[in-house]
């Protein structure tokens, strides 16, 4: 069976003026289906950059990235956008909900790109909100929700199109201990009961403990850990 995610000699450079910044220096990585992986490391080590590449938000400078056998590095922007909408869910530190839309409509957003009927879209969004335990807040705007609730809405939005992969960049970075624990519990449920492969960047060792494996990054390289670093 092909890996959920496979990175081969992935490099990423940015040019700042004349200077070339080496952000990822040859990443080799394989993640199995149904894994819950935490990615840790100092600030600026390239965690977000790697996550964005795996999620198909950007292209590496060199190397290849396969997700469920699909080579992302060969895809054009438009095809990649469509692929993202069907295969990846994103959760960010600052929730990134659209403030003008209700929770329900925020969750429906990814479904606007599908052929689902309006009724079906509403039904699926309601189901996703139910999974994160917010069915009674469907009509609220983000500004009327707490941070933890907003993050739940963001998670509902990430899973509503039923992708197999969730990428989460410091999903609890802006939450207090207790709320963070609830969100982590939710991610664990999605991993165990719904079979989602999850990659989570975090600075918090207690959060990382909830994952099955932890990978460490430093200066654009994977350094050690119990993940299947090749």
């Amino acid at each position, binding site marked *: 069976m092909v890996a959920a995610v496979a990175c081969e000699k992935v490099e990423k450079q940015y040019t700042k003026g004349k200077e070339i910044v080496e952000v990822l220096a040859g990443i080799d990585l394989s993640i199995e289906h149904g894994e819950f992986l935490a990615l840790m490391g100092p600030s600026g080590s390239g965690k977000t950059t790697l996550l964005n590449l795996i999620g198909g*938000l950007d292209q590496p400078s060199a190397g290849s990235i396969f997700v469920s056998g699909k080579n992302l590095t060969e895809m054009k922007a438009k095809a990649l956008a469509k692929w993202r909408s069907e295969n990846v869910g994103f959760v*960010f530190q600052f929730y*990134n909900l659209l403030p003008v*839309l209700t929770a329900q409509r925020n969750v429906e957003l*990814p479904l606007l790109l599908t052929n689902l009927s309006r009724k079906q879209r509403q039904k699926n969004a309601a189901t996703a909100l139910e999974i994160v335990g917010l069915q009674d807040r469907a009509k609220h705007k983000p500004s009327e929700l707490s941070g933890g609730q907003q993050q739940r809405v963001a998670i509902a939005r990430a899973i509503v199109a039923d992708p197999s992969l969730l990428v989460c960049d410091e999903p609890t970075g802006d939450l207090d201990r207790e709320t963070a624990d609830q969100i982590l519990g939710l991610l664990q449920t999605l991993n165990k009961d719904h079979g989602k492969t999850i990659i989570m960047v975090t600075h918090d060792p207690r959060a990382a403990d909830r994952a099955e494996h932890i990978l460490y990054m430093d200066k654009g390289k994977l350094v050690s850990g119990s993940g299947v670093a090749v």
Partner: protein
Amino acid sequence: MKLFGLVWANLFRKPTRTILTLLSVAIAFLLFILLRSISAAFDSGLDVSATERLVVVAKYSQIDRLPFSQKQQILSIEGVDGITHTTWFGGIYQEPKNFFAKFPVDPLSYFDLHPELTLVPSNALQRFSQERTAAVVDIGLAEEYGWSIGDVIPIISDIYLRNDGSRAWEFELVGTFSENGESQNFPLFLFHYEYFNESVAFGRDQVSNWQLRLNQPDRADEIAQLVDALFENSPDPTKTASEDEFNRQFARQLGDMGFITTMIMSAVFFTIVLLTGNTMAQALRERIPELAVLKTLGFTDQTIFLVVLGEAVLLCVVGALLGIAGGFVIGPGLSAGLSGVFGSFEVVPVTALEALVCSLVIGVVIGLAPAISAQRLTIVDALRS
């Protein structure tokens, strides 16, 4: 279409800002509708003028009168095929604000030279020419003042005194006239010149202008010169021009409406583009992270382009619709109030359509720059900011 909800919701991110912008767009288009309608009324007045008609007025002032004796001399010029005349009477119907022009005319020659006018009922022209106190009026005037055939219409003259020292005149309405069923831009009240001429205590045997029909329209310029040459050295020198030219001069005296309209609207729309454009650019900056999220979720660059452009267009079109609606509501009242100044004007669907097209174009102009920068936004950079 599924995205319409998103575009619509975005407009109400800052309700106060949106409402203020909508209002300014709406007012601009209200102005557009009203000015267009007024200047269209002017243009149509110019269009209908038959080119083969010449108008002869006193050389130095249109207030001066011309002697009736000129008629035969003008008719003797080759190429002049018919002649009629109108005379400024002034006069008040009930109140000074009921303004419309009242002309004593020669019934048969007047309607002979104005074939574009249709009289009803069928015996109207016969009665008008035979009954001394008969009058015919523009169909719009009859409607406005609720006159019907057989009504006696009292007019108080403010210029002319009657033989018996009074200023009261009474006319019996015997018919109405229209141009293809429509009221004229300068609706007229016409009565018998002979009755007028016999009744006035002064100013007899004089008219304000002669109107000539030519059977050789291509000689119009030459004939005009011949007429003026005829009276050059008489006590009553004349100035002759085509009816078009005459109307144009008249319109020019009131200001070149078309030009003024264009100038005002250009200034207004320029301001709108600047203001709304600035608002849109500002709104876009606030939303960079959101647009990045939409792209993250799989919305393509093209879709994002359309969403942002759609917002600008929607803002302008909704504003324009409000303005257009306002125009249809205010227009009729304003037209009635200003009819003495401009003639009556009407807000027509074509003008509304023009406004709508205009708003689409302005929406695109305003939305294009923000839409392009939204399209170019790269996700990772936007998410970092």
